[in-house]
């Protein structure tokens, strides 16, 4: 089964073809954590993650809240 490369938070990241955003977040151990996700600068709400299949060179952003002023 072939793999593909996406851009995750600015760096190359390889996944298996057909994998979803849900699979990605799961693989990052971030399911259930307070994170937000965008693909190609479009926010994708968590309910839509399982249906959202990723394609080569998709630009994925996974963000959290950190300390700042």
């Amino acid at each position, binding site marked *: 089964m072939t793999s593909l490369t996406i851009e995750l938070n600015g760096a190359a990241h390889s996944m298996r073809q057909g994998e979803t955003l849900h699979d990605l977040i799961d693989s990052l151990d971030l399911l259930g954590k307070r994170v937000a996700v965008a693909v190609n600068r479009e926010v994708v*709400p968590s309910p839509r993650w399982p249906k959202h299949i990723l394609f080569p060179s998709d630009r994925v952003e996974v963000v959290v*809240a950190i300390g700042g002023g």
Partner: protein
Amino acid sequence: MNLHDTPAAQPVADPGLTIAGKTYASRLLVGTGKYRDFEETRAAVDASGTEIVTVTIRRVNIGQHANEPSLLDAVPPDRFTILPNTGGCYNAKDAVYTLQLARELLDGHPLCKLEVLGDEKTLFPNMPETLKAAETLVKDGFQVMVYCSDDPIQARILEDIGCVAVMPLASLIGSGMGILNPWNLSLIIEQARVPVIVDAGVGTASDAAIAMELGCDGVLMNTAIAGAREPIRMARAMRLAVEAGREAFLAGRIPRRFAASPSSPMAGRIA
């Protein structure tokens, strides 16, 4: 007479600070950057008495252990109003995108702090980009509290766009220089129909008191507390200072006159 039976008329309590329809007892807003750890962050937040805490949105550190504690465990959204900011954004596009992610992160709550910076040296606001971003965000349903210059005309334009609070800088972010131009700030306060909150530049307690005495509705700070030798003590000092300044504003200070006025009566002097 027994004074204890006849209490003098006590002052009416301050109704508090109302932003986008929600009222807060505290007029102090604090940032969460530059603390040693989350424990110190939380202790300072508690000592400050604040109800509104601002946070920054950043990319997850891929690969780092995912179970380490997170800021929002230390300052939980069910106890504090979380105000996501766009610290680090230098154009409208990035700021809008950042706040769309923040809204998703915070289960759709629309209150946010917009700051579009002009350059890394001064962190002074880029006003043309700020106006553009404010317009887009308000149209998109955000409740925008906006970091801006102390320009009374552009403050009014931001209000007309529909921002829920204008937040002029007192001086450069993190500089601790205090309120460099109280006059412009007064012009903004006089005309404003939304809360005016000083954002950036406060260095110590008296700076916060002065802002409130000028008639500001609140003060937002981060470095002044987190960078102090004793952050928790300074957080407490700021809580007291904001309340002191607000009370002094409501109490109506004596006029400044460069002339003496005796505190003791002249009559009955001994000679």
